[in-house]
């Protein structure tokens, strides 16, 4: 059920756009209005989420125990795992964001004969996660081709590196293969590993199916069922320059692709996918471990009225003296 519900949700989305474009002729809705709304929701939603996070106070630096913090001069500090300054934090964040350092530490628990517990390194999640995210980024950057007539030079470089193998025409992009393989692996991992399957929710499966459908429809459109690419570019250029046009006869598969990616963009800020922004606000990663050097005042400290001993003695001096309790001030 947890798997089937999101699957049918994606199928329903596809049926919706096919019905809307093929039979109800709502090209303008699916080709112009929904993409605009989706991008606006994406930007506004993401800003809203980040502002909401930023309004929660973070009371303490949270040192994680995976590295030696700055200590005595003869104890070597682990500068990337337990940084004490801004530069080290930038290094740790870069490793986390670009190379998924914490996933690299992923281990697998194994019950051996005995019974005996063994922990082994498990790099497959890290590898497929990294492959998936980088492919997605490169594919996103490549799509800039649809939104500019004169392409900046770096985009050409990325494109030619991605199609470096020169297989077939249109040339096969390596990232197209990698993203499909990686997402498929991530899905299979979810349903075959009993522990991961137990904690998986529809909110985990839905983005997987949606991304698989987006990538699948894109691959289908590029290599197999051709669409009118000139019409597609007219539409995308119209969107980007705020002069929307809807050419006729583009092909239904393009509208499926566009609608699914619009759904992904609109869904993004309100789902787990918002970890794209959230990773930058990970408290255990983005704060220097300088608890012993800098005094951190808890920002939500309630202003407590302190009654000092001096005030106490002032209040009760005579009574204390009369029963023989020593006082500091006569």
């Amino acid at each position, binding site marked *: 059920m947890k798997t089937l519900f999101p699957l049918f949700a994606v199928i329903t989305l596809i049926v919706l756009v096919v019905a809307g474009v093929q039979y109800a002729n709502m090209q303008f809705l699916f080709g112009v209005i929904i993409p605009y709304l989706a991008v606006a929701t994406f*930007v506004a939603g993401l800003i809203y989420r980040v502002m909401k996070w*930023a309004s*929660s106070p973070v009371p303490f630096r949270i040192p994680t125990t995976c590295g030696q913090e700055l200590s005595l001069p003869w104890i070597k500090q682990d500068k990337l795992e337990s940084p004490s300054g801004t530069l080290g934090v930038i290094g740790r964040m870069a490793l986390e964001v670009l190379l998924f350092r914490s996933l690299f530490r992923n281990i697998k628990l194994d019950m051996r004969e005995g019974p005996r517990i063994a922990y082994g390194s498990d790099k497959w999640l890290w590898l497929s996660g990294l492959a998936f995210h980088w492919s997605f980024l490169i594919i996103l950057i490549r799509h800039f081709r649809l939104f*500019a007539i004169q392409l*900046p030079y770096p985009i050409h470089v990325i494109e030619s590196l991605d199609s470096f193998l020169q297989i077939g*025409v249109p040339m096969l992009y390596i990232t197209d293969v990698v993203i499909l393989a990686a997402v498929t692996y991530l899905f299979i991992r979810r349903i075959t590993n009993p522990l991961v399957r137990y904690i998986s929710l529809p909110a985990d499966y839905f983005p997987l199916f949606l991304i698989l459908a987006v990538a699948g429809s894109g691959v289908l459109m590029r290599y197999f069922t*051709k669409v009118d690419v000139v019409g597609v570019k007219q539409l995308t250029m119209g969107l980007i*320059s705020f002069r929307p046009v809807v050419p006729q006869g583009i092909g239904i598969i393009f509208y499926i692709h566009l609608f699914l990616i619009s759904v992904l963009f609109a869904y993004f800020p309100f789902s787990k996918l918002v970890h794209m922004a959230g990773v*930058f606000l990970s408290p255990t990663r983005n704060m220097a471990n300088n608890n012993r050097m800098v005094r951190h005042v808890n920002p939500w400290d309630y202003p407590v009225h302190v009654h000092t001993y001096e005030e106490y003695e002032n209040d009760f001096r005579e009574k204390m003296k009369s029963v023989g309790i020593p006082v500091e001030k006569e």
Partner: protein
Amino acid sequence: MYDSGKIITGLLVFVAIVSFPFVYSRGTNIVKPEPKIDTPVIQQMAVKQCVQPRAFMRAEHMQLLNDWRDSVVRDGNRVYVGFGGKQYNMSLQNTCMHCHSNKKEFCDSCHNFMSVKPYCWDCHIAPKENKS
């Protein structure tokens, strides 16, 4: 809001990245490319017909050229049986460009609009009109 300096800087970077394509392509004049087929050779043809029907050529010409290259270079076979059983010499420079001698107005008009750079002319010699 806590750490407002860093948060706002981050959000500004995000908004800048998202709005980059809009700024980059602002006010672009979108002219639908119309590849021209009014070359002297085509005008003299009684039946204006390419090696395959127009719809096929529009969608699959790159695949066709790729197949031609493989056939000529790997198998040494230069004979192509086209639409209506007519035989053609498989050659980009001698067959395709014989009729479509206007590379700039034919090939390039769509390719430039689509920002694609086919690698045909890495090896082949482009028609003379292009050299000026």
